[in-house]
């Protein structure tokens, strides 16, 4: 059947149609196949008595047909691989069709129907050539205990570890230098990018690119960004808190790492009532009391 050929075989020799020379061979190939499908759909439509069809309708039907055929192909291939073969047989296809709910018995009758139209063979295009993988180095031959029909070894670079002999830079001065340069480069690139993509101000009337300043933009609540520490700072603080600066001063932030953040907001003297949680309920502060409901008026 048509479909089996489409999917199961690597290539079908079809004569080429002159045309879009601009597209790549792979695209040409697919285009030709698709075209044939369209012809098939059109033929079926004519067979069913349609005189004309909208392009969109034909396209949709083509799409459906293609999906169907693709699915049959995929399934058949799966069945065949399931039985450790590499080329699908007729039985694979039959099982697939049955699996997909198709009554196989009707197929011969349908194929032999009288009003069936004969379609010319699809144009021949060259199947796309998969570019050869670049091979590097000498492939290893199989050792004696491996039969020769087993696949060859891949290129050596895919499994061989090549040690490099350059020591990582650990000189303090170089590290600092590198970190500083890197940070400066990142900052400059970032700010330049923002400046390029947004509004800018310039210190020179004639040259607005050498020292671009990101335009000042008023904010609705300016004190928020000015007072709250940025996420970056908070993150840095957490890191330093948990790491080295502990041994320098923080005698308070000892045992409970979970409470670190809480503690940092509270005074270092740290005489916070230990029963704080329970006391919260006891605190009688007028601002914490619930709001009362209005009294019902006497007069109505």
């Amino acid at each position: 059947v048509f479909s089996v050929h489409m999917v199961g075989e690597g290539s079908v020799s079809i004569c080429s149609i002159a045309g879009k020379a601009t597209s790549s061979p792979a695209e040409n190939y697919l285009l030709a196949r698709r075209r044939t499908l369209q012809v098939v759909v059109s033929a079926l439509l004519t067979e069913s008595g349609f005189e004309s069809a909208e392009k969109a309708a034909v396209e949709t039907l083509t799409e459906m047909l293609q999906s169907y055929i693709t699915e049959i192909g995929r399934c058949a291939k799966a069945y065949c691989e399931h039985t450790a073969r590499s080329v699908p047989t007729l039985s694979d296809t039959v099982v697939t069709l049955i699996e997909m709910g198709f009554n196989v018995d009707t197929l011969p009758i349908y194929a032999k129907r009288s009003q069936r139209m004969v379609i010319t063979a699809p144009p021949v295009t060259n199947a796309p050539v998969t570019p050869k993988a670049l091979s590097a180095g000498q492939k290893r031959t199989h050792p004696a205990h491996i039969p020769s029909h087993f696949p060859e070894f891949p290129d050596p670079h895919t499994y061989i570890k090549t040690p490099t002999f350059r020591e990582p830079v650990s000189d303090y001065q170089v590290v600092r230098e590198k970190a500083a340069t890197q940070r400066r480069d990142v900052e400059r690139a970032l700010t330049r990018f923002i400046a390029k993509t947004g509004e800018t101000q310039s210190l020179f009337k004639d040259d607005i690119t050498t020292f671009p300043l990101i335009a000042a933009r008023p904010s609705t609540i300016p004190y928020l960004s000015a007072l709250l520490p940025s996420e970056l700072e908070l993150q840095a603080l957490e890191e330093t808190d948990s790491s080295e600066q502990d041994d320098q001063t923080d005698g308070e932030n000892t045992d409970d790492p979970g409470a670190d953040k809480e503690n940092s907001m509270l005074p270092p003297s740290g005489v916070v009532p230990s029963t704080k949680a329970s006391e919260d309920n006891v605190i009688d502060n007028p601002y914490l009391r619930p709001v009362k409901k209005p009294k019902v008026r006497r007069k109505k």
Partner: protein
Amino acid sequence: MSNEDLYHKVVGYVELTIFPTVVNLNRIKLNSKQCRIYRVRVNDLEAPFLYNDPTLEVCHHESKQRNLNYFSSAYTAAVSAVDPDAGHGELVIKVPSELWKQGDDLKVLKVYIEFSLDQPKGGLHFVVPDVEGSMAERGAHVFGSCDEKMKIFSCHRFWFPCVDSYSELCTWKLEFTVDASMVAVSCGDLVETIYTHDMRKKTFHYILPIPTAAPNISLAVGPFEILVDPYMHEVTHFCLPQLLPLLKHSMSFLHEIFEFYEEILTCRYPYSCFKTVFVDEAYVQVSSYASMSIFSTNLLHSAMIIDQTPQTRRCLAQALAQQFFGCFISRMSWADEWVLKGISGYIYGLYLKKTFGVNEYRHWIKQELDKIVEYELKMGGVLLHPTFSGGKEKDNPTPHLHFSIKHPHTLSWEYYKMFQCKAHLVMRLIENRISMEFMLQVFNKLLSLASTASSQKYQSHMWSQMLLSTHAFLKSISNVSGKDIGPLIKQWVDQSGVVKFFGSFAFNRKRNVLELEIRQDYTSSGTQKYVGPIKVTVQELDGSFNHMLQIEENSLKHDIPCHSKSRRNKKKKIPLMNGEEVDMDLSAMDADSPLLWIRIDPDMSILRKVEFEQADFMWQYQLRYERDVVAQEEAISALEKFPTPASRLALTDILEQEQCFYKVRMQACFCLAKIANAMVSTWQGPPAMKSLFTRMFCCKSCPNIVKTNNFINFQSYFLQKTMPVAMALLRDVQNLCPKDVLNFILDLIKYNDNRKNKFSDNYYRADLIEALTNSLTPAISINNEVRTVDNLNADVRLILEEITRFLNMEKLLPSFRNTITVSCLRAIRQLQKNGHIPSDPSLFKSYAQYGHFVDVRIAALEALVDYTRVERSSGELQWLLSMVQNDPVHYVRHKILGLLCKNPPFTKTTDSALCNEALVDQLWKFMNSGASHDWRLRCDAVNLYYMLFGLTRPSCLPLPELGLVLNLKEKKAVLNPTIKPELGVGAVMDTPASIGQPPQGLKRKADTPLGSPPEPGQILQQQDDDGRGFNTMEDEDIDMETVHDSQAFIHHHLNLLERPSTPGKHTHTHTHTHTHTHYIHVLKTLLIQFT
């Protein structure tokens, strides 16, 4: 009505309960501004009232008067006319005649006033960010923008009718109805919060049982986050949404301040609760009211911030000190203000001493002393306790000032700050005299009397114990200490000015005597003569000796016998004042003299400036070995004049000494830079401070790279911040910043690494930018070529590169208080000013817009003001002035005028194209009527006018058409008044128009000699109407409807009835005995609804 309008409206209702204390009470005068009064009732009877605010327009319209003397006197008169301490007010309520009988029986009167406030310009400040969302989500809030100064400037009449005086105490019941998402914080105890019937609003009920004056009442409404203090549950903190973590951290310290004050005063905090509210766009940083304080939200900070922490704690301490003295105990009259400011400032100083240490305290005292001395010598004296004899304003106690100090409302802001500064310094002088123990006993006594008085119900005569007068304070001091401090008070309180000493000495070897000469300058402005004791400390080889000398009229020279023989005993250690014994290298000394150094008035027990001459080596010894930070700082400033290798060594040693107070070390940096510049041709070795900085802060292995930041040691943090700033001031022989210094600073920026630091480095980076700014020198320009990128100096290009990057990074990762943007803006202005880049105001204009953080705006405005002066740009001046009129933030408006005064575009002595008639008119109009809603702003405008045009008619005005001066005394006219500016103000008539109307000056010819400012108080005596003093000026301006109406009203309804009004005409001067009040209102209920 638009939404915005809807949200800026307040509807209110005030109820006053009044006990008449005299018969014949027929009028009640209250203070009220801006309010629209709907209805007034007295005991359920409709009462007629009239409303007249003379301060709305000080000098009346068509007047062509443009001299400041005239304005100041008219303004003082206008304020006097509504002065509550003299029983006046803007709102005059006539008690219905049916109730006169009741009043005569001294029965209770109840006054009900309904009012509304629509878009108030002053008093209440609304902050509504322009974003989507409900009011609460937007962080909208409102607060009484009356702060410390505004408070004394009594802005309360701006938001509800009251007796706007500190001496009128009553208890309060306050109710505020606000949107359900909001919290209303006010004075007193929150009794309950109740929903309105539609459940969309809440009413907050407050009761303040402690008698309190209206100016101590405030209110803040907003979607506040609430934090109950973990240590003191009766203390509640409020901040705007999202700032709660900052609030928690910033307030974690408050309880210690509470404990400190309660301990030294041996007195509980007087109110049952305390609230702190942090608001945006605050009028000033700190303002205290009865049981609550309002702060600027910008004081909040996180644990990462170093520099802000002490500042915030200082603000808290100030606010709390004022809770005791200023809120709980308030002043009897304006003349007693100094006592309260003095005491609160003094106990705040004690707190500083305890928390920040004696060094910091003495440093602060010296700073304050230097400030007041500088101000008084420049501007003339500051008078703490002015007395105004019987309304005769011609004996003005402060004729050198361009404003009157009779009322807080007419006072220049700067003067008031200096006034506070002097007040607490004088308290310290009293402490020196009677000892701290007695001082604290006096405070304790005052507080206990007041708290006894406050618990008395409805016995209002008892309540006067809660008011403090100069007299009562002095009496209490003499009772407690038994000492007479009269001379001290006379010298520093009743009299203005500071003392200026010049000292020099010679050593007489034969007699072994130090011959000290102390001269005084008491003729310059702002100085006074000092007669009395003075302490002199002499450090000799054998020890340190104090001598009390007597400064007398004619004796300049004082002989002080020396203890030591000049012959040095080489092995011996030298004992210091504090008992320490040190080894010194005495080779620098004069071999014949045993004197190491001499100090005059080391304890700062005189408000003085001392210019003392001693040899450079003596200053060096003083710097190295004297342990008092004040002495060290004095020595540093003196050493600036001695650029020698020995001075350099002394300064470097101090810099390296870790036990030395860090502020002294910081000062030494700048001195060292100056000395290095003076020694530029002979300087040996690397640039000053470079090797020191490298040793202290750079890596051992690679000295050009700074260590990663670790600011755990604050002393070295401050030093690390300061040294580059000072180093950048170094100059080489070509007067340029040395190349290696600039590269050094650029490297500091490059290698700055804060990743491992517990603290933010924003201030440090800002200072590095400041260092770059300091390194700039004027560009060499050939033929005024246009500045372009191509002809940029290579160093400047590097600097500009850094500034661009910093400023841009700030947009992505803003620093705390945007310190880096602030520094960058300053740097850019400096680049412009030095001609490296084109001078252009547009960048600063965009940063000055509303919507930027306030510090950034101020920095941008500072640059703009500078630009205006340098480029003489009238466009920018206009831009600034329109911002003064239209900006939503009061502080910014105030600040612009302040900056313009500090850096004026021109002055009265210089010619400028900017100085023209239109500008005069514009400023005049602004002072006259434009700033009527804000006392502070009006006084700022007066300051600016004075700075630009002086006291007399501005010289740029064309000669008046007739050019006539009416000399009223001699009854003759003189042509061309501008050349005789010293003539009396009221007498200079500019135009025929004003001559056409009978000018007010004509009226007082009998008792106003020319040359003294006319004061309407004088009319007050002549005419039989107390309240009309000022209004007589308006008699002629009958086209003004309201005035006319009010005049008619007074004439027909009140004046004809020969009954005294509220104050009574015979008590128009204020006395300490508080007799002017003829009624006492006992309970005041205020209901306010925000719609």
